[in-house]
């Protein structure tokens, strides 16, 4: 039963990753990111319940606070301050991106299959999905030309990693997890400052402007 639920949450995570890949609006991207956070919280809580590991509850709570409330709130503020609710420009058109996404999914599933054999977790089947989420988020970062979606892609990538850890080994040790949580929080703050700097410098958030920084 809980194994089934974990599988379902894994599928939802992948679904949300694909939705992010196909999304054109920044605001919807943030909503999708929040939804991913909710799914992660549920997955961690169900895992904790199924395996009687209390630290998973802690990590679920941490995820809830950080990924469902704090980070989306920061992102909302950033895009409100930067006034960037416009459509996202993509470097490659979306159907092609999605096709590449399918290829990535097949690749990830096959790469993860032998690793999953080694694990004894009830959710080892989902390792492939977690890996696929990571790869999809990475691809989202590559294909977007604006800075904010790239940041969201980075955050989604971290979500995938978190899920992989939860699924394969029942979560990382508490210290590591807290460290990562702090890293992400500091990371988003720094990136926020960074975004303002980019805008001040170039009057735009298009990262193609960064090419000008290259030493001529």
């Amino acid at each position, binding site marked *: 039963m809980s194994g089934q639920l974990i599988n379902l949450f894994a599928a939802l995570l992948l*679904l949300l990753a694909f939705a992010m890949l*196909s999304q054109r609006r920044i605001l919807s991207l943030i909503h999708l990111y929040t939804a991913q956070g909710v799914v992660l919280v549920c997955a961690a809580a169900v895992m904790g319940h199924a395996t009687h590991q209390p630290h998973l509850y802690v990590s679920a709570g941490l995820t809830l606070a950080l990924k469902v409330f704090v980070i989306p709130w920061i992102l909302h503020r950033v895009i409100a301050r930067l006034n960037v609710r416009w459509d996202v420009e993509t470097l490659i058109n979306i159907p092609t991106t999605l096709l590449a996404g399918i290829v990535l999914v097949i690749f990830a599933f096959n790469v993860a299959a032998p690793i999953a054999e080694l694990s004894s977790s009830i959710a080892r089947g989902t390792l492939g999905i977690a890996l696929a989420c990571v790869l999809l988020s990475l691809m989202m970062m590559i294909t977007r030309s604006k800075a904010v979606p790239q940041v969201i892609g980075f955050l989604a990538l971290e979500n995938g990693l978190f899920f992989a850890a939860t699924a394969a080994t029942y979560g990382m040790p508490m210290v590591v997890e807290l460290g990562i949580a702090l890293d992400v929080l500091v990371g988003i703050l720094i990136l926020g400052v960074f975004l303002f700097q980019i805008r001040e410098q170039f009057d735009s958030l298009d990262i193609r402007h960064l090419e000008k920084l290259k030493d001529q």
Partner: protein
Amino acid sequence: MSPLGAASQLLEIAAALALAPLFAGWVAQCRAWLQNRSGPGLLQPYRLLHKLFHKDSVIAAHASPLFRIAPYVVFGCMTLACGIVPTLSTDLPLSPAADAIALVGLFALARVFVSLAAMDVGTAFGTLGARREMLVGFLAEPALLMVFFSAALISDSTSLTTIVKTLSSQALVIRPSLAFAAVALVMAALAENARVPVDNPATHLELTMIHEALVLEYSGRHLALIEWASALKLFAYACIGIALFAPWGIAQAHAPGALLLALPVLAGKLAVAGFALAALETLSAKMRIFRVPEFLGMAFLLAVIAMLVAILLQGAP
């Protein structure tokens, strides 16, 4: 063929024929409520059909017999489709004659006929509608087929009754692959039934319409049949969604009591589905026709991922 099976088959077709316009009326009514309008009333589709049947049919002077045959073929296809999808019972004598793939073929047959009929009169809007309908069709059809395939992988069968039996005997957990399949099915169904993000059933604005452009030349009883057939199609898609994702309450074979209970259960589920559809239509805006391939491509890819996930998680405990 058992007598009970024959009875449930007939009951199912009769229920579909009778309830389909009501379902269309319910969706329109919900849409009106959600948009703060008072709405035409639940029975409006019946009044419309009655009116159209009474009117003379006006046909273009040079229309060929194909034009007059097509409404009957489309209506026949949709009736059979409603008879195949298990809505009330899984003991259906017609079910072995057509599985999920044949059901998709049946929808395709109806679509091809209505498109050919639209081209028959040879007007600008008719051909435009035919082209757009086929465009929507060739993208939505594989998506629908892949949705069925991901359900077929779970139950190891493409027979709709077996799929429903397998799925309804499980715990109340949706299979992960079906989560993808559900999204894909909703997207394909919106496109196939000319609902809002793809087409607006209430519009007659020439350049944006798809379905209305197809049936522009029809009038009188032919139009009535086509309208009834599209109500049946919407009904069939809603029933496919129910059969795949909420199959509980569909009577198993040899249970006359459950058969009687199945009707109110179906009505309740349809009411929820209709409201959800209306809400979805109210919340979304119609997209440009050039965005439609992207929308349907997305549905297609989601359905493919559903199959992949089904295969990946099949080996897992």
